[in-house]
């Protein structure tokens, strides 16, 4: 029962651990999640989203297996151990670029979104530059700070995502019927589509050594993934239910249209409040991804360089995010690159888990 100040200093509590995982997955992507899924799976998009949840669950199971065997070594050390120094380093580097990619893509997404709705007067470059200053500031403060922000953001996210419950009043049953009407293959294709929205759970592999109660890796991550799946399914469902499968794709950010169903008397537009609060959530998700990439890159650097990495990340992220361009071109890039990263991540952690399993079997 004893609690002490220094003992907790560098460790994450269970709730912080869970909310970081939650915060990595739910970023800005949820606002346009219904688009991709509903395009393929039509009115059954929400079922696809439910099935797509298998991917993060798989990541959780693999991560908790690795975490159980090596509670104090993160995947970077393990990868060097099992793939050899050279190959392991290359894989780690690719893993780092994954997080850099995620951070820049989310930033670009968020910039496009904000600038098309209410920030038209700022250029993309200025917007992203200011955004990344905040991100680098947060990243430089370390994991504990990001964990605390994630904890606060978790509650904000849940509250914000539930507010469109008002849309149920204006919805129509025909929008969602017939259930399973679009066919199994469409639903499965939709599930694949939704998998990309679930990317981010890989962060568990990096942060589990920081969890104080190692036994709770599985429980904590499982809990947060479940909440993510529930919220994702809810979002896709309410969007389809409110707008109908045909209208969903008419808007880049279809979920935002649903938020417009909420009316607050003092201000004309609830969407505005929603987007304002969502900014902080977007900031947090970019920060977590930024932190993860800096964390991996620090593994390569010597002591002097470590401090500089934060500052080097700034131009890199800015350059990448700026060059993704407008929303169409960003979506193209994202759709082309992300599947390869997901594939890589799957192979990367699965092979490490298999190696661990085989090596252990050999010893025994």
């Amino acid at each position: 029962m004893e609690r002490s100040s220094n003992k907790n200093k560098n460790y994450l509590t269970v709730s912080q651990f869970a909310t970081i995982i939650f915060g990595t997955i739910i970023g800005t992507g949820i606002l346009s999640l219904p688009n991709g899924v509903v395009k393929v799976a039509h009115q059954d998009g929400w079922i696809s989203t439910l099935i797509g949840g298998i991917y993060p669950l798989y990541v959780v199971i693999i991560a908790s297996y690795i975490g159980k065997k090596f509670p104090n070594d993160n995947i970077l050390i393990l990868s060097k151990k099992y793939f050899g120094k050279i190959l392991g380093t290359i894989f780690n580097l690719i893993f780092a670029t994954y997080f850099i990619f995620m951070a820049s893509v989310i930033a670009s997404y968020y910039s496009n979104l904000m600038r098309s709705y209410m920030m038209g007067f700022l250029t993309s470059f200025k917007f992203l530059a200011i955004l990344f200053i905040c991100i680098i500031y947060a990243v430089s403060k370390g994991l504990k700070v990001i964990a605390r922000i994630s904890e606060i953001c978790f509650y904000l996210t849940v509250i914000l995502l539930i507010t469109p419950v008002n849309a149920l009043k204006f919805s129509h049953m025909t929008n969602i019927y017939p259930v399973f009407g679009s066919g199994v293959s469409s639903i499965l294709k939709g599930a694949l589509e939704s998998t990309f929205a679930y990317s981010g759970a890989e962060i568990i592999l990096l942060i589990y050594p920081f969890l104080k109660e190692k036994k709770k890796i599985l429980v904590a991550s499982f809990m947060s993934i479940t909440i993510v799946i529930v919220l994702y399914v809810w979002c896709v469902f309410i969007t389809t239910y409110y707008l109908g499968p045909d209208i969903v794709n008419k808007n880049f950010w279809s979920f935002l249209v649903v938020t417009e169903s909420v009316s607050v008397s003092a201000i004309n537009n609830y969407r505005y409040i929603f987007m304002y609060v969502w900014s902080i959530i977007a900031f947090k998700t970019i920060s977590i991804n930024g932190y993860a990439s800096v964390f991996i890159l620090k593994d390569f650097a010597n002591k002097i360089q470590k401090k500089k990495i934060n500052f080097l990340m700034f131009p890199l992220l800015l350059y990448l995010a700026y060059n993704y361009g407008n929303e169409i071109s960003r979506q193209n890039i994202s759709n082309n690159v992300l599947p390869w990263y997901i594939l890589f991540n799957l192979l990367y952690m699965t092979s490490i888990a298999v190696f661990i399993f085989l090596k252990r079997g050999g010893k025994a």
Partner: protein
Amino acid sequence: MENGDLVGNIELIRNGLGAQSPMVVKHFYIGSDQPLEAAIIYVNGITNKDVVDRDILNPLMIHIPENLNGKANIADYLCKRYISVSNTLVESDLEVVINYLKRGKTAILINGATEIIIADTTGSQQRAIMEPMNETASKGPRDGFVENLEVNISLVRTKVKDKNLTIELLNIGRRSQNDLALVYINDIVDKQVLEELKKRLEAVDVDAVLSAGALDQYIESYTYTLFPQADSTERPDRAIGNMMEGRILLILEGTPMVLVYPATFMQFFQAVEDYTQRTVLSSFVRFLRILAACIVITLPAVYLTLIKFNVELIPIKFVTPVVQSRVGIALTPFLEIMAMEIVVEFLREGGLRLPTKIAQTLSLVGGIIIGDTAIQSKMVSPTTLLIVGITVITTFLIPNYDMSLSIRLLRFPMLVLANIMGIFGIAVGWFILLVHLSSLDSLGVPYFEFHKSDMKDTFIRAPLWKMNKRPEAIPNTNPIRQTDFRDKFKKKR
């Protein structure tokens, strides 16, 4: 003390206290037949002369019927037999004696004896215990700390009779040599926090520590943050409440402000009345305070965004009055708000140290004349004035003055951000604020961290009998503070 030479010893003490010290020496004889030569020494102004005259000089000079020559342990004998002061001790170390003299005690030297009697005659002039002006509570005790360390300690001691209440005395300031008391409950306080605090206090090396606020700045970790890193209070009940949660009280001689370590952000939104008033009421008030803090930081910035960038968001019925009121105003919205905010800050800072009679003039000129003429001369719009007025009123809801000042300062950077980037700027401001708060710590204890079990006393104030555990945010060694005692008399249905 090397020998019993009376004149020599007096000279040594005089050197120790400083040649210019207002030291009083009185020579006299004690005993009958062949009287012994003796002297008392005290520092003028900090001793109670009545006690010296009545309980030391009177018995020693008049009421000793025996011959004391050759008596072994004469100092001890005199203490036990003749000196009718309750707190006496016998000391032979000159340094210690000098230290006592500085604190208002009286030394009795006897020719030929190597020991000195110290009698407690402390009694300088001090302010009476009264209700602190800056922290009043409608329901609650009326006593407040004063400038005297012993009185302050006694105020705590009389309210907490636990044997684990520990009072550690330290000395600080090279020239002022202030006494400093660390007060905590030994089996609750976290030893690492305590060690850290002591380490920092012992490291302080300055001429004088004149106030608690200065001491706090000497030992805090983050110099350039806006936020206070120690809570300070003049109310014993508040200090004790904090101590019971595992915090450490730091009482400095010469100031009625007691510092409370470690500090957490949410603590500054709790007030004494929260615990004396009813649950629902306290929860409501606490909610109001947090809302107020948000309004102070955001409202002017949001208003600026609405009239500068996002006019479409103003409800249609408000558009006409807001726009009409702005017709013919020369200043830009940003300058307009900024100017009014700064005028308000002028009024506040100006009124702070003015005598009450003149302050009335200030509030008249500031509030009525400037407010009215600013609108008539088309410098600001009435809406702006309303927004600034609301902001000013809400700052007064934050119970702690330090925190209130910090938070009201935050609206200026927020205004600038909003002026450059609109609503995105406000989001940037809030995010940086959250990151900054999360990165702070007070003596290694996270400043801004929420725990599920502490929610009973953060945004709301749960029923007191439900708070069975001490707050998790403050490290402690004994988390249980009460049991479910109400089960004993509440009928289970």
